[in-house]
């Protein structure tokens, strides 16, 4: 006796993939995979958690939503976009991964990333280390004083704070003022040498935005808007993101 035939009933329920397609330009080309494997063969995350970009996309196409939205691989992929760069069909796997991250309940996302995001959005500086504008100003001021006194040829070195109308708005990763402040000095010297018209700001000076990595859309938008606002308030022309 033969087994009963499998019947496909009614409309297919919406897959996770369909939701992601709706919010991406060109639907991220997520249905266009040729399964060539160019993505997986050049991805440093291939093999971690038993997955790779091609497998992840196949899972999405097959509607394996539960596995897709719970795999920790979402946090092993850095969304570096190399897979998309080499893909003959320009498939936006990184955005699929971003939305896989966003599908995690917020309090189950990696604690380190979440804490950095929350810390940044609790201070005006948007520093993930919680360094306030006042602390940053003090650090810069003291260090500048020291260099002026001790280093020949830099008696007039500048590190302007909140200078309205400066051409460059220079940001700084929190790690420097917090952990290795001396690393800021070579940059000041370069800006001094070329005669750049630049400024720091005590508001929104921190370069990092962990809310983006956390895949918290509201939080990363808030983070970046506050920073953009700080640039606009000073009327600067160029927002210079440092090394």
């Amino acid at each position: 006796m033969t087994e009963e035939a499998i019947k496909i009933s009614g409309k297919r329920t919406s897959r996770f993939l369909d939701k992601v397609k709706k919010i991406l330009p060109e639907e991220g080309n997520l249905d266009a995979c040729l399964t060539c494997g160019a993505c997986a063969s050049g991805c440093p995350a291939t093999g971690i958690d038993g997955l790779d970009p091609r497998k992840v996309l196949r899972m999405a196409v097959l509607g394996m939503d539960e596995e897709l939205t719970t795999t920790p691989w979402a946090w092993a992929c850095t969304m570096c976009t190399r897979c998309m760069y080499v893909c003959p069909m320009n498939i936006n796997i990184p955005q699929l991964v971003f939305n896989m991250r966003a599908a995690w309940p917020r309090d189950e996302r990696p604690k380190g990333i979440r804490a950095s995001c929350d810390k940044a959005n609790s201070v005006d500086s948007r520093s993930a280390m919680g360094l306030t504008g006042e602390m940053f100003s003090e650090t810069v001021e003291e260090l500048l004083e020291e260099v002026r006194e001790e280093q020949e040829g830099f008696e007039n070195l500048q590190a302007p704070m909140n200078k309205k109308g400066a051409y460059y708005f220079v940001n700084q990763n929190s790690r420097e003022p917090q952990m290795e402040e001396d690393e800021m000095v070579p940059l000041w010297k370069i800006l001094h040498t070329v005669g750049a018209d630049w400024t720091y700001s005590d508001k929104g000076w921190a370069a990092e935005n962990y809310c983006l990595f956390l895949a918290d859309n509201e939080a990363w938008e808030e983070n970046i808007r506050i920073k953009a606002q700080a640039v606009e308030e000073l009327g600067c022309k160029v927002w210079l993101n440092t090394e």
Partner: protein
Amino acid sequence: MEYAKWIREGKLPVSSDWNKDLGIKFTLQDPCQLVRKTYGDKAGEDMRYVLKKLVGEENFIDMSPNLSNNYCCGGGGGFLQSGRKEERRTYGKIKFDQVMATGADYVITPCHNCHSQIHDLQEHYGGNYHCIHFWTLICLSMGILGENERGHLGPDLEDFGLD
């Protein structure tokens, strides 16, 4: 890349003379965010222009693959903060091997995440290279790098040019 612009305009008088006899070798990491994701290969070419001016053409050894085809180091996307240290280092092995294959003494890492990750890979896998930012090398080449500004330089350069 403002550095490239300033060198082309003659505002930043850098030179590679200091490295003529020393022959210290340098390679360059292409940060994903800067190159592949934002400005494209043009940013990578600019950085190579700057680095060659700083260390001498013959002392620059490129990674393979490079520019937009370069591999992510594994420091980005929050990986450094995600608590997945072992996986992050597994991810980064390909970058470590790439750097080691160049035989370079220094990797220029013009991104904070790249700097932290490639430095950590060096310690973890036992590499013999150092990671520095462009600003360190620019000031070194102009003879204006202060004594306290050398935290990431190796023993070969930590006193270089100081009285």
